[in-house]
């Protein structure tokens, strides 16, 4: 579902959203899952500026907050992929 939205947006607003497109996440396992979920509500500069000081537990807290407080429809399996990705690529190493 998220991919369809993304594709539609790219076609319609591909040029207009140029600056936002420049915000890239590091290549790594799970990046596509992070992009597809997180990008629905906010641009991907959010995790980038919140780095690299959050440990795994803190990233878990953030992802959980997105699900419980902000209603992000993320399955537990995908939440784990997201936490793993953020911890590995934007974490404090702890």
């Amino acid at each position: 579902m998220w991919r369809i939205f993304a594709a539609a947006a790219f076609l319609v607003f591909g040029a207009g959203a140029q600056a936002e497109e420049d915000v890239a996440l590091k290549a790594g396992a799970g990046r596509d899952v992070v992009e597809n979920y997180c990008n629905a509500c906010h641009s991907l500069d959010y995790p980038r500026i919140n780095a690299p000081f959050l440990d795994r537990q803190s990233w878990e807290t953030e992802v959980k907050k997105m699900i419980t407080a902000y209603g992000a429809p993320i399955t537990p399996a995908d939440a784990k992929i997201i936490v793993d990705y953020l911890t590995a690529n934007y974490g404090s190493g702890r």
Partner: protein
Amino acid sequence: MISRRAMLAGGALALAGGGPLTRAVGAAEKPFLPPGLPQGVYDTATLEALPGKKPLIKLSYRPPNYETPLSHFTSEFTPNESFFVRYHLAGIPDDIDAQRWMLKVGGEGAGKQLELSLPDLQSNFEAVEIAAVCQCSGNRRGFSDPHVAGVEWGLGAVGNAVWKGVRLKDVLSRVKLRSDVVEIVVNGADGPVLDGTPDFVKSIPLGKALNDNTLIAYAMNGAPLPHYNGFPLRLIVPGWTATYWMKHLDTIEAVTKPFAGYWMKSAYRIPTGKFAITEHFASQMTATNEPITEIVVSSMITAPHDGHTTRAKETAEIRGLAWDGGYGIRRVDISTDGGKTWRGAELERDVGRFAFRSFRFGFVPRRAGTYQVMAKATNALDQTQGDNLIFNPAGYNNNVPRPLTITVV
């Protein structure tokens, strides 16, 4: 479900991919950023212009969070096109037609429900102006030690403007408030992307709502509010942090029970009793935490910039701004030795107790070397900027004096 607007605005990035970005970028390469922020800010922040704005420090595109570069703070008044932008949720209305804007006023605590247009407000109520600092609760969050999650603001999530509009109390007087009203709830036209995300809705205590200084503003520095600062109407709560200054204001409701929304009960809370605050939000307090309310006394040096080089025996003018929750700045002290000794700065004109107060100090370094320059403000209640951060998980109320380094040759 996702709204159509968000669906269109979002998404594009998911296909964009992107290469590795591993090179560390420091403050020196992005001189518009002060030192002390998380490394990710140096890697990510850029100078970008939103429509109607000058290039500001972009922390996030969507929702838009842009702070004012230090170099734009050249007077007590922050120009509209330089004023910081802060949104929580990405569902922001575009193409607002001010002539068709309707402000709903009422709620279960009111005996009457009203709808007011912009012309109604402008012609049927007394127009009032006030100069007041609008400061994001999380201004300087990025300097928290240890760092905490959130928008990693540096120094520029703050500005001062002359706000023109009508008194909230004058508007409330038209809807027959019940005697048991405790809070006034305010909502704006911006909203969430997902149905499950709580809309950004805030409340203020009835007493604050009835304060003469609390306004519904339609103008800022003599012009209509910029779109990204809340066009066409914004609540102005002088002395209190910007979380209460609802943008795109379209609903005002009197309530007889404390408002229990997410943005009151779970967000924007500070530990109870840790900060020097006079006005508390009694109906929203618990033993452990309370809503952030007043702006704590603060100051920033706006010139020279960190890393500036000057010459021995010549005057280097140190300039800056000081502000507080509306008690008035009584003095500003400057240290040029990293906080060991302090001397009073000259305060410039007073443009209002809720406003920025400019200060200046002529620094004549006697010999070459490196100097740590700091400013510390004190208000009329003798509240000042503490040397140590009062740590809190959301990084609020950070008013610790920030040293900048000047090299003297």
